């Protein structure tokens, strides 16, 4: 069973190499690799759910000298999310990139990205995290530059430089930790880290680097341009998965490795930045002229919600209330992943259909593509945090935690953010009502619209109604 850990890294990697060497069968290879990875992720989730956390030591070298892959409830859930997002997005990409030459360049990078994501989530020690983080960054940058044209390359280059800066700071923090404690294994560190200047400085440096990579306000400036020119599937994974991976690292570091070293002031700082992200991101999304920029700023805002949890988790003593909050946080992250991916795929369909994604001129397109519009609506519902989406449950926990600890500011920010999100989502959806004749068939381009619908339905309905196991799974870990 613990073999699934290495399969999750090996399969997409092998797929990436195969598609690079044999471009003619690339489409089939991608589908096969994707399916296999998804099955492995599912098996892992089931395994973690029944047996608890799992470890796989590569090459048989034990932790300390060797590289250990580790999976607990949190990583298993995120791995499943990644697989369930990448698979429909792969189907979508087959149609989106109509020319075989485009696909031949796309698939290797795509699968490499998947490999990096999986490896990052499975890493058990800090240095492996650094390597996979870099791999992720390089893959994402290359994909973002695929859009071609000056804007895309510029945005990709900015993303790369920002990412490198972040990675360097992260590495500096890692070195400091090694200097102070002599080990890089995360579980071991969780036991021995004490509050003090070493831990504090290391945490600060690593967090600073990760905040750059997860686009937390005010370090989010690279995200909207990168999205604006990237192809739709790339935007989808960038917003839904890549920045989520960086956030996952912040979560691991703050809640597990450095749990004893975190101070309320530091947690509050993250909360304040998160609040800034929610308000600023939502405001910019409201003023956005293009759908892609709206979605990009929405990502900035949604990540802010995730960071709002930190002051709450700091203030809640360990116990059921804290576990509820953590579960809410994870569910919110999962929902956003699916919703944002589906939204970007839908925006891609709109762009293909009408050649642009300007919101003001959306009328005809929105009405001629009912399935796409419905997908956007479902995604929007999940982003606003309305029931029955998983985000509603997450926000409930956020509000409950804020009320319970008396931190009313975060509650107010959450509600205002939701209302702003409603404003910018319904601004778009208003264009779906007009005078164009209803097309006879609801679904126009099946292979593009069904993935979008599937992803947004996951976010808006499935995670909300079937989200209870998340809490149970997280008991085996954080």
């Amino acid at each position, binding site marked *: 069973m613990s073999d699934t850990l290495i399969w999750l890294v090996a399969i997409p990697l092998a797929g990436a190499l195969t598609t690079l060497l044999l471009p003619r069968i690339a489409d089939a290879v991608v589908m096969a690799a994707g399916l296999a990875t998804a099955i492995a992720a599912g098996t892992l989730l089931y395994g973690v759910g029944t047996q608890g956390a799992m470890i796989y030591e590569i090459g048989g070298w034990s932790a300390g000298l060797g590289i250990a892959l580790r999976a607990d409830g949190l990583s298993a859930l995120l791995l499943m999310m990644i697989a369930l997002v990448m698979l429909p997005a792969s189907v979508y990409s087959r149609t989106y990139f109509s020319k075989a030459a485009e696909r031949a360049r796309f698939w290797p990078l795509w699968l490499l990205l998947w490999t990096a994501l999986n490896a990052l989530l499975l890493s058990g020690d800090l240095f492996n995290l650094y390597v996979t983080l*870099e791999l992720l960054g390089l893959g994402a940058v290359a994909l973002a530059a695929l859009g071609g044209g*000056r804007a895309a390359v510029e945005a990709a*280059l900015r993303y*790369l430089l920002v990412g*490198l*800066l972040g990675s360097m700071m992260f590495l500096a923090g890692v*070195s400091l930790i*090694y200097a102070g404690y002599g080990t890089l294994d995360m579980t071991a560190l969780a036991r021995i880290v004490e509050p003090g200047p070493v831990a504090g400085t290391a945490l600060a440096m690593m967090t600073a680097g990760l905040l750059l990579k997860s686009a937390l306000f005010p370090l989010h400036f690279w995200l909207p341009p990168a999205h604006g020119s990237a192809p739709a599937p790339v935007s989808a994974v960038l917003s839904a998965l890549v920045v989520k991976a960086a956030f996952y690292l912040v979560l691991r570091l703050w809640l597990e490795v450095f749990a004893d070293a975190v101070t309320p002031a530091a947690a509050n700082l993250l909360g304040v930045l998160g609040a800034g992200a929610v308000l600023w991101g939502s405001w910019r999304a409201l003023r956005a002229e293009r759908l892609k920029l709206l979605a990009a700023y929405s990502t900035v805002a949604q990540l802010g919600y995730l960071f709002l949890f930190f002051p709450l988790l700091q203030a809640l003593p360990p116990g059921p209330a804290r576990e509820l909050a953590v579960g809410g946080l994870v569910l919110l992250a999962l929902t956003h992943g699916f919703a944002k991916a589906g939204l970007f795929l839908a925006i891609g369909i709109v762009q293909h259909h009408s050649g642009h994604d300007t919101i003001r001129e959306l009328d005809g397109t929105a009405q001629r593509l009912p399935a796409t519009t419905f997908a956007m609506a479902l995604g929007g519902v999940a982003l606003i945090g309305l029931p029955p989406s998983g985000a509603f449950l997450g926000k409930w926990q956020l509000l409950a935690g804020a009320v319970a600890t008396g931190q009313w500011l975060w509650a107010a920010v959450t509600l205002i953010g939701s209302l702003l999100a409603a404003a910018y989502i319904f601004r778009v959806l208003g264009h779906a009502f007009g005078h164009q004749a209803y097309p006879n068939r609801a679904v126009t381009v099946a292979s593009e619209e069904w993935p979008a619908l599937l992803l947004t339905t996951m976010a808006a309905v499935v995670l909300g109604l079937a989200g209870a196991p998340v809490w149970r799974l997280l008991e085996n870990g954080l």
Partner: protein
Amino acid sequence: MLTAQLLYALTGCLIMALGLRTALLHASLLRRVVAINVMGTGVFMILLAIAYRGPELAPDPVPHALVLTGIVVAVSATALALALARRLNAEHADE
């Protein structure tokens, strides 16, 4: 007491800080890429300093492995950055 180890570590920090400053402040693309590389070198120096375990023991191999990996990563990243910069130049030249 200013031992050799401490000296190396402090120098590493200084180099890192210099690299960081240039990366943040200067606009020129090539400068930024070089600055980030310099930053990386600073971090590697810190790691080297950490590896020293005294005159009797051999240095700790783990930080050395980290430095080697780090160099590889930095080289690949720089290559990508330069490739993109070249592409950008080409786009500029076309206009």
